[in-house]
């Protein structure tokens, strides 16, 4: 089967390469095996030479003991020669214990003795056991010569005592040199055997492999030949080529399999990495959640305390300290906003907690207040006003913020606005000084929750303070009511004598008018009568205001109650230097209403106007305080009616009587304007107002079926308008 074209066929074939490797391996293994055998033979030969040399030296030592003992050179000649005549023995020597050569024989090489026995025996140590020294030319054996001392005492000479330990005395040495040529020849012979065996095994191996290959491929090649024969193909593919292709295809399949395995392995490793990252992330989240739980527990604890106490400052301090310990950050601060004289929003430090480590490591914490506009923190303020949090590392901040944070050693910070009634009261911050932090969502939630709690606490205190004011106003209103009651009673009591005085004054006036019309008494009686009328009108007004004189709904000209109300305030306004301008139209249709209630409406408006202009005059020197009261008839469009919430159906042909009270007082902003009609809402200081004026007025307006509208601007003044619908059937007078 090994044809001439075999080298070309097997060149480049994987199977042929494999075959070459196997042949090489067989050759190498064979050589190694035989080298191992040669080494074994060498060791065995060395052992053999050693044993032989020692045995010969020992025999010689035993045989010449007596001659060495007596230094009988003649006697030791024969035993020495017997050993010396052996083939490999190069020389024999006998020494005494003084290392003096007693007898020696050496074989000459090239006319020279190859060994110096004296040097050799001196180079050997004094030890008694047999020794072997290997030189380039020979193995040199040395064996001591002993004689035994058989008796210790004279009586021992009589008995054979095998138990007795006999001392042995060294009386000389036997030195024997064996040639190494025998060994070298043996080694050469072993090497030759190795080479020969390697070649033989190599040939046998190649033959065996060829037979095996033929055995393996014979069914396949037979099948292939039959297939080719049936297909009419004549070319022949030999066994090596067939085996090579088979190997190549199997190798390719194996390589593809390994490729798939590698891909799967990489996917598995990627999955493991993702899983590990997921686990790490989950652990971080769990840790953050645990921390949040701790923080929320602290917040809850503080909240419980807050519910038990109205004071929020101690509660905030305790909560911030607890948060600091639980959160394990560097510092936690609570800042409150205020507006300075320049209109800038400033954050003032209310409370802070700083860890011991930060306190020890950072000398200057620089706890100055923070001005948003001056430091370039407007973006923070915008976020806070929208209720949004700010968090991040200093590196991620704007240059101005980063510089400010770096200057304070802050590496990372998270801030949550403190919102009170949808307004930013301040913020709460948490900062780290030793590490950068990617603030986890749970921790930010916890910070925000704490900020909300603080906001709720502040709001609660504001509400409490406001409630106390309302209570004071309510008490003031009560006192006013009692005063009204008392005034009503006093008016009733005064009215009777005043009637008598009036009648008497009339009688006197009639008398003096008839008898002495030019006399001072006539004039005095007339003054008495006028002043009594004035007193009677005042008493009537008090009775009306206290409600005792309520006459119920009836048609009347609304100018009269307005005039009555103005009568109260004209003197007051003059005393307060308030310019009261009256534009009261008398030509008005009568409307169905209650005069006292309408008058109370006017009184309340005027009272508020007086307070507003006085309040503004306190801050503006030279202000001309002015109050204008208008009452006029107007025809309104449908849109105008609906603009103040009126029902056009109630306005006959859009006709309305309009009462306007205008002042140039402090005015109201939108917030105050939106709340000014609420009961007990007031901008006045405690004790100055009840917060019920406009609320009662609004209630009276609605009770009488009127409509109220107002216009107001801060520091410009206010206009209160009451629209009195003129209904069908109400006639013009």
């Amino acid at each position, binding site marked *: 089967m090994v044809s001439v074209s075999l080298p070309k066929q097997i060149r480049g074939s994987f199977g042929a390469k494999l075959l070459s490797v196997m042949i090489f391996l067989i050759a190498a293994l064979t050589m190694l095996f035989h080298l191992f055998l040669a080494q074994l033979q060498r060791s065995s030969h060395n052992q053999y030479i050693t044993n032989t040399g020692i045995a010969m030296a020992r025999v010689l030592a035993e045989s010449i*003991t*007596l001659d060495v003992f007596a230094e*009988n050179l003649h006697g030791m000649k024969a035993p020495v020669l017997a050993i010396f005549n052996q083939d490999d023995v190069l020389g024999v020597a006998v020494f005494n214990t003084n290392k003096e050569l007693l007898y020696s024989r050496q074989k000459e090489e090239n006319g020279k003795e190859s060994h110096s026995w004296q040097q050799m025996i001196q180079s050997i140590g004094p030890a008694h056991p047999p020794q072997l020294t290997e030189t380039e030319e020979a193995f040199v054996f040395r064996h001591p010569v002993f004689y035994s001392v058989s*008796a210790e*005492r*004279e*009586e021992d000479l009589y*008995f054979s005592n095998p138990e007795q330990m006999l001392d042995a005395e060294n009386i000389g040495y036997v030195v024997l040199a064996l040639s190494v040529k025998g060994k070298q020849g043996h080694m050469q012979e072993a090497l030759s055997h190795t080479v020969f065996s390697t070649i033989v095994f190599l040939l046998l191996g190649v033959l065996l492999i060829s037979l095996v290959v033929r055995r393996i491929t014979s069914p396949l090649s037979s099948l292939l030949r039959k297939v080719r024969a049936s297909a009419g193909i004549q070319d022949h593919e030999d066994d090596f080529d067939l085996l090579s292709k088979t190997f190549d295809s199997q190798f390719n399949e194996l390589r593809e399999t390994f490729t798939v395995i590698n891909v799967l392995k990489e996917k598995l490793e990627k999955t493991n990495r993702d899983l590990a990252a997921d686990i790490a992330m989950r652990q971080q989240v769990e840790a953050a959640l645990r921390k949040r739980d701790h923080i929320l527990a602290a917040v809850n604890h503080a909240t419980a305390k807050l519910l038990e106490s109205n004071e929020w400052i101690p509660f905030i301090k305790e909560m911030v300290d607890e948060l600091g310990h639980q959160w394990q950050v560097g510092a936690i601060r609570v800042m409150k906003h205020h507006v300075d004289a320049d209109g800038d929003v400033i954050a003032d430090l209310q409370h802070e907690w700083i860890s011991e480590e930060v306190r020890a490591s950072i000398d200057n914490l620089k706890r100055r207040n923070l001005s948003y506009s001056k430091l370039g923190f407007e973006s923070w303020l915008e976020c806070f006003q929208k209720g949004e949090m700010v968090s991040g590392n200093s590196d991620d901040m704007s240059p101005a913020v980063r510089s400010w944070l770096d200057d304070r050693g802050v590496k990372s910070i998270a801030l949550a606005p403190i919102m009170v009634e949808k307004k930013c009261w301040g913020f709460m911050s948490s900062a780290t000084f030793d590490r950068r932090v990617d603030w986890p969502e749970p921790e930010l939630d916890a910070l925000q929750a704490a900020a909300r709690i603080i906001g709720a606490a502040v709001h609660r205190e504001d509400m409490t303070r406001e409630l106390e004011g309302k209570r004071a106003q309510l008490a003031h209103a009560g006192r006013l009511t009692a005063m009204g009651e008392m005034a009503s009673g006093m008016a009733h009591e005064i009215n009777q004598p005043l009637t008598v005085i009036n009648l008497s004054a009339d009688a006197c006036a009639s008398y003096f008018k008839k008898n002495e019309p030019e006399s001072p008494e006539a004039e005095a009686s007339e003054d008495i009568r006028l002043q009594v009328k004035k007193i009677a009108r005042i008493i009537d007004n008090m009775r009306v205001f206290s409600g005792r004189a309520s006459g119920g709904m009836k048609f009347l000209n609304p100018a009269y109650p307005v005039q009555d109300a103005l009568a109260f305030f004209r003197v007051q306004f003059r005393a307060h230097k308030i310019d009261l301008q009256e534009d009261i139209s008398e030509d008005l249709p009568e409307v169905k209403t209650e005069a006292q209630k309408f008058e109370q409406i006017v009184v309340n408006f005027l009272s508020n106007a007086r307070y507003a202009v006085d309040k503004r005059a306190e801050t503006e020197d030279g202000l001309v305080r002015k109050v204008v009261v208008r009452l006029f008839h107007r025809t309104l469009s449908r849109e105008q009616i609906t603009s103040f919430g009126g029902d056009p159906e109630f306005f006959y042909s859009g006709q309305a009587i309009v009462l306007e009270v205008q002042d140039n007082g402090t005015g109201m902003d939108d917030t105050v304007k939106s709340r000014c009609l609420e009961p007990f809402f007031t901008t006045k200081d405690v004790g100055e107002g009840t917060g019920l004026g406009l609320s009662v007025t609004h209630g009276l307006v609605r009770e009488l079926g009127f409509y109220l509208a107002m216009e107001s601007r801060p520091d410009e003044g206010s206009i209160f308008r009451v629209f009195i619908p003129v209904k069908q059937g109400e006639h013009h007078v």
Partner: protein
Amino acid sequence: MKKVIFAITLCFCIVSTAAAYDIVVVKSRSAGPYEEMDRLVRAALLQELPASGQKSIQPHSITSFSLGEEDLPAVTERIQAASPDLIVAIGSKALQFTEKIEQTPIVYLLVPAPEKYVNNRDNVTGVRFGLSAQSQFNQLSRYIPGIKRVGVIYDPERTGDLVHQALFTLTDHELVALPANNPRDVPALLKQLQGRVDALWLVPDLTVINSVTLESYIHFSMENKIPVLAFAEKYLDKGAAIAVTVDKEAMAEMAAQVVSRIVRGADIKAIGSVVEAGRGKAVINRKITAKLNIVLTWME
């Protein structure tokens, strides 16, 4: 009458208990010859000790110690505690061990040269280990007649007395005695004896007898066809032709007789520091005598 006889018998028994002896046997070693001699002495003592008293009631106490096995101070304490009536020392070491005991009688055995241990001590006597030169040569002549000149190599320091005594006492033999101070001299001295002697006489001398010199003697014997007269049987295996030794049983019996005499009150000075065993025996290596072409007349 019966009561009187019982009382007399009881008194006799009480008195007889005082006649039981405490004897201590001290051996140099526990090796075979010493053990054998211990056994023989015990047997002989039981035969020779005074028959007075009721042994069945109170036998003699014989206690043995081996110096090779036991702690010497402990043995000394035990011997002193036992306060024996007599000490039997078997071997030179045992005799040397008892040299500080002055009050207790001591009888030695198996001591080849007792003179240096006795040193005029009054309480020491013993049985000679070996036979006199005359006895040995008589035995030699008895089995191997015709021997006139006998060669001997000896160390004057060790066996000078023995050889000198032989020189004076031997009448039928001519003794060629060569002194040696070193074992290495032996081969050379043997050469001097070559052709001058009909036999070699080995004496118990540590200087001239060791494994190598013994080999020299045997070689000399073989080369010159002359027999070697040895003093112990063990040399027969080495190549000696005849060994004349003391009979051990005779030594034990003699020692027992000496002990018996001492315990009965005999004066040790009267006995002397050494007594002869009296009876010897000759053992012949017939293979050697055959190789030496020696005709054993007595055996024939």
